[in-house]
């Protein structure tokens, strides 16, 4: 990977603002001061980790297999799905060998986390974490269970749409991105205060996974495609030196 000289500037009106009062926790967790822009990003921002030597387990990207009830191992309950997509940059260039991580609730909307006290039960055969590297052409894939929606204390009756948290590194820490994939057609999407932190409805579309029947496995699993776009890498033609 050659170090780019610059990345396309992040459009911070496209991304959600720090302060988005409909999402209550953002009120005390958003800076009041302006961000300080680095006019000349350095190697500190333009480089980032390469995870090709991270040793992955055989089921790290297969959530149907990577958490087992030791007493009575079986398959998790819920809609079996393949989640796949391509990581490209803003110029359409594939991003190979980059780390994609994901985590999610189970089919009932319950997370396997000490802090989640929702009454929907845990699934003894479901953990909810996956990771993989994109291949030579920028593709990644997971196998999992479609997560359920769940209630959370924001408004009096606020529910998250079904979503999978997706984390991608890209070629540098400048391209680092954590987002959430939502499922096309879910009526909870437009009424979710976290989705509504985005001002631009087109930006919301970048977070919606699409049902892909062609990639589904008959009598086995439906497929959902979620492509990720990270900041475009630029070479600089003219420098001061």
């Amino acid at each position, binding site marked *: 990977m050659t170090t780019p000289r610059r990345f396309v500037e992040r*459009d911070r009106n*496209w991304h959600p603002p720090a302060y988005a009062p409909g999402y209550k926790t953002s009120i005390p967790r958003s800076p009041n001061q302006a961000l300080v822009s680095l006019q000349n990003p350095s190697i500190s921002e333009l480089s980032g*980790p390469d995870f090709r030597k*991270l040793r992955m387990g055989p089921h790290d990207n297969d959530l149907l297999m990577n958490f087992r009830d030791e007493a009575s191992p079986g398959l998790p309950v819920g809609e079996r799905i393949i989640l796949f997509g391509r990581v490209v940059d803003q110029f359409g260039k594939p991003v190979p060998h980059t780390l994609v991580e994901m985590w999610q609730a189970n089919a009932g909307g319950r997370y396997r*986390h000490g802090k*989640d006290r929702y009454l929907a039960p845990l699934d003894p055969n479901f953990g909810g974490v996956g990771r993989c590297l994109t291949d030579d052409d920028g593709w990644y894939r997971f196998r999992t269970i479609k997560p359920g929606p769940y209630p959370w204390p924001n408004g009096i009756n606020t529910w998250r749409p079904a979503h999978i948290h997706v984390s991608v590194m890209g070629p540098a820490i400048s391209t680092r991105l954590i987002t959430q994939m939502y499922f096309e057609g879910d009526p909870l999407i437009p009424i979710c205060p976290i989705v509504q932190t985005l001002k631009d409805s087109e930006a919301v579309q970048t977070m919606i996974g699409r049902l892909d029947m062609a990639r589904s496995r008959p009598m086995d699993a439906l497929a959902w495609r979620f492509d990720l776009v990270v900041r475009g890498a630029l070479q600089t033609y003219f420098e001061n030196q």
Partner: protein
Amino acid sequence: MEQPNFKPTAELMLRETASQTAGPYVHIGLALDVAGLPERDEEIWNRMAGEDAEGERIEVVGRVIDGNGDLVRDALLEAWQADSRGNYQAGFDLKAPFNSFGRTATTAAGDSEWVLHTIKPGSITAEDGRVMAPHITLSLFARGVNIQLQTRLYFEDEAAANDQCPVLNAIESPPRRQTLIARKESGEAGIPRYRLDIVLQGDGETVFFDY
């Protein structure tokens, strides 16, 4: 009237996938031990330097504080730093003595401090020949944080280098520069410890960068 050959730049490029908060359960995905999940054979975590790493072993610790002065107990931080000679070791390999990348988190219990076990980074000469003082780049993800907050940690015992650092000097307000300087403490077992609290909002608000 629009020029026939004019297209706004945005139409010539794909738009970046929009960011969303990492949410309250980020640990399930990125800090399995904190979530109470069994760890995989290899995890990306907060021991960036092993016994054999070249350079001065240090611990870096801190808290994250919100606009009410309360502890943020569910933050995940990612660190990116050069080795003791000022070079980034990008090839992440748990068998290597030092990795430039690490993760840490504040926790629900106790003082809720994040910790990195690392080495003190060297200075870095930027493209334009100016020297950046030793620093650790930090990205903060948490519930209520819609897009990660990007900051830097500098060291109080590098005062001369800090005074010359082009990035610190890009911060217009001198008092605000101080929000990035970690204070030295005596740590356990003779390993120096540097402390930096990250204040998300209000008095003493940490400087966050766009780049």
